[in-house]
């Protein structure tokens, strides 16, 4: 375990979630589940964050916000899709204003399902994401980098 997987800082963005998953993300960091005791700190600044927690699905209004945050995050970075909506659209998958899961906007590393996602599942996902961070850090040393996604790039393929 290198320093990369210790104390990952997270940034949270509410794409078009119903708030159910949002407050569970916050509850994960607050007393009760208290992921903060493992050094998981919520930051508002993308440039301080290692893990990007996205709740809710992607629509055409927020897709560029998600990509902007993703691009601003320093490498190595991991993305967690929190909740069914973020994984593939959830109950809203056939709404006219929903494009789909977060993987249609940016590459996703860990999927945490649930409606609403349970804090236990989120803690699990963060632990998984730490492994991803380690792998990406190794890859980075070999010169492989995360893609920069142009804000107006077309929607990605499902599950890409």
């Amino acid at each position: 375990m290198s320093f990369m997987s210790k104390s990952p800082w997270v940034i949270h963005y509410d794409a078009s979630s119903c708030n159910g998953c949002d407050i569970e993300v916050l509850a994960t960091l607050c007393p009760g589940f208290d992921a903060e005791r493992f050094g998981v700190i919520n930051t508002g600044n993308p440039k301080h964050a290692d893990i990007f927690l996205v709740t809710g699905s992607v629509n055409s209004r927020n897709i560029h916000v998600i990509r902007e945050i993703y691009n601003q995050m320093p490498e190595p970075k991991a993305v967690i899709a929190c909740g069914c909506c973020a994984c593939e659209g959830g109950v809203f998958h056939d709404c006219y204003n929903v494009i789909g899961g977060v993987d249609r906007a940016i590459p996703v590393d860990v999927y945490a399902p649930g409606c609403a996602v349970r804090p236990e599942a989120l803690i699990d996902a963060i632990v998984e994401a730490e492994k991803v961070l380690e792998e990406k850090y190794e890859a980075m040393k070999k010169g492989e980098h995360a893609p920069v996604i142009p804000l107006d790039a077309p929607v990605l393929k499902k599950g890409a």
Partner: protein
Amino acid sequence: MGKATIIPFGPQHPVLPEPLHLDLVVEDEKVIEAVPQIGFIHRGLEKLTETRDYNQFIYIAERICGICAVGHSLGYAETVEGLMGLEVPKRASYLRVILHEMSRIHSHMLWMGLAADAFGFESLFMHCWRLRERVLDLFEAMTGGRVILSAVRVGGMVRDQDAATLAHVQEVLEGIKDEYHEICRAFLNDSSVRSRLVGVGVIEHDDAVNLGMVGPFARASNVVNDVRCKEAGAYAELSDFTPITSTDCDCYARVEVRAKEILQSIDIIEEMIARIPEGPVFEKPKGSPADGAMACGALEQPRGECYYYAQGNGTKYLQRMRMRTPTSMNLAGMAAALKGCDLADVNMIVLTIDPCISCTER
């Protein structure tokens, strides 16, 4: 006087759990105008009534907002029951009120935590959320879910609660009450908290009425509007209900109103538990809403009055389902309260309306 500058606020902003974008026109440090922009979480779920029948749609209605999930499913269910002329068993309407008031407690505690975070009192934030966890544990014991409960259905409740569970609820709420008094003291008496809140974002009574504000935001400006007084459902059987109001009209008053409402909700739940009648909790709805039938419903959500409208078309799908949510009523008030405030107070004022963007945009 400096030149006017526009500062964008959001959609991703540390104090906002939800994306709301504000264009703040500032001159030096004073905000002269705030223009809200919404649309980041619009999903278009009212249209889903075309593909989900009225029994299925309650799960969508619940997911309009994860904080007032019980409220939305309840408002939807009551409206559709009105549409079909369905009478809900007494016990079910008591259980609904118990769950709804519990969700008000959790919503207000959540809000008080966020407010504490906004004025930079992080430990108070954590304490509020710690207490809130206990309410969520109760939800889990009663329904199996923490935030999305799926407990209400058209015609009653999904399941009954036994006496032991209700006694447990009462016991836990009693415990919460004791600890909550301490938190309340910090909110209402602490001098550093007061200095951030008193006199900030004032909206006078008449303006509040003109801007059509609802909920605790309006009650803090001494507007007595609380749909619970209209005594729909089990609220009619409460021995006594007086809406909590304040005459201060500022951010402090809004904190005070919500702080007291938590205690009021605990009292309501205790009374409901003491008087809950025995009986069935579900009455199966038969047939479907008649063609052209219309029904409205109003419900006091944690954030204010929420209004529902439903229209049937003779099939099991609704012709139209529409809701007017409290935050969309309060946005005008928020823009008015922001006018003339300091830039540093913007986040506090935005929070005191308790914005719920996902209700507003749906």
